[in-house]
């Protein structure tokens, strides 16, 4: 039976893993390879590395650390940040990443999703969606979210973009609910439940994990395929082996 996946997300800056508000008060969390191995050993099912300075600096992902991680670990990992073309994506995959994730560049030029899917296969094309509930009650996407000062609201409804991204060739969707992100009050179940029936490809919940029960809620109530989190794992508030044991106790299929 297919397991539900637990995915730690690691923000990378200048070749180091950092945490904190993006672009403010970064705390150095350590060496990329060390953390990748630590999470692998703890039972992470997959890792996401987000090159947080690539996009704002107008460059693609630094490939040297992608290669170092790929040499080291034997679980899949996805790389995000600054991928704007098939060539960018190909270079990251050649360095050893298993998937690439695109967000702002896909909103700016949706055809990019199709180009990537045609050239590399849908299975390695992840579309990340940053979503906010606006005052009128509609969920809409945000772009350029890597930098609070540069963030934009293109006006697109989250549900519309989700459907279009799949039509274009997204093989997986990461829905980052910005309203719950960093607050640790739980995943945005209402939004995930609204998205789920429209998402035929695997859906990854992101934003809001603060307790083990939040993961169970996302799997049981919103039927997501994977749950992504950063802070709770980095701080040690939740240890992955205990989390998996807990989820197993809730009759949720997870990999030992």
């Amino acid at each position, binding site marked *: 039976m*297919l*397991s539900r996946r637990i995915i730690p997300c690691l923000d990378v800056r200048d070749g180091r893993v950092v945490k904190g508000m993006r672009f403010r008060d970064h705390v150095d969390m350590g060496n990329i390879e060390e953390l990748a191995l630590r999470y692998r050993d703890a039972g992470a*099912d997959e890792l996401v590395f987000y090159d947080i300075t690539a996009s704002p600096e107008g460059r693609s992902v630094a490939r040297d650390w992608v290669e170092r991680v790929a*040499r080291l670990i034997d679980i899949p990992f996805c790389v995000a940040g600054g991928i704007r073309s098939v060539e960018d994506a190909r270079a990251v995959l050649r360095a050893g990443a298993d998937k690439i994730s695109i967000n702002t560049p896909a909103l700016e030029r949706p055809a990019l999703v199709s180009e990537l899917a045609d050239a590399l296969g849908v299975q*390695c094309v992840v579309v990340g969606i940053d979503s906010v509930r606006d005052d009128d009650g509609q969920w809409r996407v945000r772009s350029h979210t890597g930098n609070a000062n540069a963030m934009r609201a293109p006006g697109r409804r989250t549900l519309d973009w989700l459907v279009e991204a799949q039509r274009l060739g997204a*093989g997986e969707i990461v829905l980052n609910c910005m309203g719950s992100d960093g607050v640790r009050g739980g995943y945005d179940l209402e939004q995930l439940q609204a998205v789920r029936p429209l998402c035929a*490809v*695997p859906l990854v919940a992101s934003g809001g994990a603060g307790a083990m029960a939040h993961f169970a809620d996302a799997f049981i109530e919103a*039927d997501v*395929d994977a749950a992504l989190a950063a802070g709770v794992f980095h701080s040690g508030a939740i240890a992955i082996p205990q989390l998996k044991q807990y989820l197993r106790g809730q009759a949720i299929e997870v990999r030992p």
Partner: protein
Amino acid sequence: MTDVAVIDAGGANFGSVCYALERHGARPRIVRDADGLADAPRVLLPGVGAAGPAMTLLRERGFAEVLPALRKPLLGICLGMQLLFDSSEEGDVACLGLLPGRVRKLVGGPALRVPHIGWNTLEQVAASPLAEGIGSGEHAYFVHGYAAPVTGDCVAACTHGQRFAAVVARGRIAGAQFHPERSSVSGARLLRNFLQWKPS
């Protein structure tokens, strides 16, 4: 240390396969045309991408002609395994024809997402030195939208809505639908088994 010829079939991710081979003490060598296969004792056909373009490339570079006549252990991974079969529904193309059967699209459903992405359990179907130490219930990492049928060549199966071949072996031809390079313990086992495999 054993050399492994890793065929460049246009997929972009053979980096991770090569690193995994290195972790197991093998020496991978990327080959771009059939001549490169001559002095390698083992051959690996990785593949991420679509069956059509991959087959076109294999034909252009002479692999489609040479691989069936080769007398060396050959392991196809993911799309590389699918290409070993007669044909694929993906792009409706003829494949290498080393294993009988047609690769078909996985059928999705309300609680059944396609592509099939993630860790799923293996089910042992037949004994094979290739799958030694990989028992039923072990997890492997899958990423695919098409799958090969369970035939007499199936060593291990997996189920995602339907049952499909996860590991196949016939003579010197072997394949894994999952990604051994990203499947932790079970993947390491399969790669080590392949590196020591002496098909009769």
